[in-house]
């Protein structure tokens, strides 16, 4: 009998094309997602070396980081550098014959939302992209992680990556979530516990009753931020929820192929007794709606807490917290619910899916955003946008005073015109609260879509549970 394997072990073993004596492997890549920011140098490298794309049918490109989110974008991109980058992707997709969703296509959106939506991401696959949030796709029980541009070029040329296997980490969320607590709170609470480097060198498998109870949208939110905990990838074993999401998607298998795939996918779970190098357990009931107060995703606390003091920390974190509080304009002891906000951003590959918009709209229905607050919703894809319009969510946002935008990465990283001004404070459903992330000197508080909506209405950080 073979030794019990983790889900990660199984997917890894199924993709080793060659293993050297020292354990360095050529790992085969099933899906390669490409966007405009981290790929131009890779395609240029191919051209200079006279190389082609080995598996164009497994390579999917979509512009997302730079694209404006205003409706007039069909007329073209004003910013010259952004336009050049998007044009380069247009040309590279055409020249190398890879699948492509241009800005004008209703299916365009954030690469990590488009991949699953179109059925490109399937259980058991290896998925890479020149983007750290590729971890999102792990929600399907696929091994998915971000790579640099040199590795993008390597995958384009060889359909493989040179890799050594990481370690196994189990993150179990037992029991049930309390009302008002979401997948975003789970993933932030885990980072709060493990720190931003706690997952370095590991692949995380999320499991437990509270994870099983999540929709695919919620699971993608959890896995999306595995990278914020330092883990290369986060995984969730596929189950009926996964299969129901995948079935019928444009690039999902059909007929006999579906049956064969399903039989295989049902073998993708961690065997009883398999070894994990590290285990973290949280009780679902203990997780509260959370918000970040600092400039690292590990700087997270329940919404009813107060801003901490540098004295609460040790080592290098003391200086980091002093710097973070100064940057964020916060005082130790201040109640988080007293922190006033200027802007609300709902969107990103973390929380730009239909379920996220439903959660925010449920809070906003029949309400108006506070005076002086700027609020925007940027759906994760054109199809999410269309569905939200069909369900009447768009009208709820518009009636409340939100701007209803076209799909893209937008203010999550502010490469397009959607940016914070210096000192401006944002309640954001995105994934990073780094200095300058949403705009030069901008201040970011990460939270769930429902919490973002509640903050928009009150004008300050707000406990969504008090908000009926």
């Amino acid at each position: 009998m073979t030794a019990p394997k983790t889900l990660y072990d199984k997917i890894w073993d199924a993709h080793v094309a060659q293993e050297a004596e020292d354990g360095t492997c050529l790992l085969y890549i099933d899906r390669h997602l490409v966007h405009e920011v981290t790929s131009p140098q890779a395609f240029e490298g191919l051209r200079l070396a006279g190389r082609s794309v080995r598996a164009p049918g497994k390579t999917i490109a979509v512009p997302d980081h730079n694209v404006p989110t205003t409706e007039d974008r069909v007329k073209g991109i004003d910013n010259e550098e952004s336009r050049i980058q998007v044009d380069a992707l247009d040309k590279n997709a055409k020249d190398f014959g890879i699948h492509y969703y241009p800005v004008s296509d209703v299916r365009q959106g954030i690469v990590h939302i488009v991949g699953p939506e179109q059925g490109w991401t399937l259980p058991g696959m290896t998925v890479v992209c020149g983007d750290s949030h590729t971890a999102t796709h792990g929600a399907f029980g696929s091994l998915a992680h971000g790579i640099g541009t040199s590795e993008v070029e390597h995958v384009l040329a060889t359909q493989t990556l040179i890799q050594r296997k990481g370690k196994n980490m189990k993150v179990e969320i037992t029991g049930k979530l309390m009302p008002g607590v979401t997948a975003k709170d789970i993933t932030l609470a885990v980072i709060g516990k493990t720190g931003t480097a706690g997952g370095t060198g590991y692949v995380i498998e999320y499991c437990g009753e509270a994870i099983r109870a999540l929709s695919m949208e919620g699971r993608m939110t959890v896995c999306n931020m595995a990278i914020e905990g330092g883990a290369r990838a986060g995984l969730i074993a596929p189950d009926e929820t996964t299969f129901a999401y995948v079935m019928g998607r444009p690039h999902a298998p059909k007929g006999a192929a579906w049956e064969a795939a399903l039989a295989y996918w049902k073998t993708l779970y961690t065997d009883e007794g398999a070894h994990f190098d590290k285990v973290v357990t949280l009780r679902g009931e203990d997780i509260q709606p959370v918000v970040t107060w600092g400039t690292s995703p590990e700087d997270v606390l329940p919404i009813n807490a107060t801003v901490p003091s540098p004295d609460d920390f040790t080592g290098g974190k003391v200086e980091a917290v002093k710097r973070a509080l100064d940057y964020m304009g916060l005082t130790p002891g201040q109640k988080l619910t007293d922190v006033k906000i200027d802007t609300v951003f709902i969107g990103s590959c973390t929380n730009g899916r239909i379920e996220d918009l439903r959660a925010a709209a449920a809070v906003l229905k029949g309400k108006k955003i506070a005076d002086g607050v700027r609020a925007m919703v940027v759906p994760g894809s054109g199809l999410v946008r269309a569905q939200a319009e069909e369900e009447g969510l768009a009208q709820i946002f518009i009636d409340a005073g939100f701007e209803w935008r076209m799909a893209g990465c937008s203010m999550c990283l502010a490469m397009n015109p959607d940016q914070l001004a210096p000192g401006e404070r944002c309640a954001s459903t995105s994934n990073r609260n780094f200095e300058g992330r949403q705009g030069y000197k901008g201040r970011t508080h990460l939270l769930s879509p429902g919490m973002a909506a509640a903050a928009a209405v009150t004008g300050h950080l707000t406990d969504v549970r008090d908000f009926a």
Partner: protein
Amino acid sequence: MDKFTTLTGIAAPMPLVNIDTDMIIPKLFLKTIKRSGLGKNLFDEMRFDRDGNENPDFVLNQPAYRNAEIIVAGDNFGCGSSREHAPWALLDFGIRCVISTSFADIFFNNCFKNGILPVVLPAEAVNYLMDDATNGANARITVDLESQVVTASDGKTFPFEVDAFKKHCLMNGLDDIGLSLEKVSAIDAYEERAKLQYPWV
């Protein structure tokens, strides 16, 4: 890619923990389709004010560190975004080695693809070298990849671990796409196998 064998140079101390790739190279500068020319914007928001004036407190603006080739950094250097523009910017500025207790995985890999050596050392060693680095141009640190040793300016030595394959590529300046393409028969064979086992992929 330039080879990395031995480097003796000025080390800039950056004790801040969790220095992320957004700090190393802000997104404004990712709109390039080239790899070169990013050094002038390395740590842009820390190095300059909005009008482009230098922040005199920032370590790389201080006369002793303008020619630094090594950074000694706080824990978890290079976390966040996968942008390879981060090592490109470091390299273009002249940094060939970063020493820390830990690095984020993607950044760590990206360094090796660009001739930069990330050295992981225990906290006591990093603290020692951090102190050494505060002596500016008077303290030149040596990083010897072949023997896997960092030597402080007073001669104190710190051995470090490095993956044998990555070391080989870095010491010889090898293009790993070329190396992998030499194994194309293994990739072909995998694809044949996978076509039967996982025909839906």
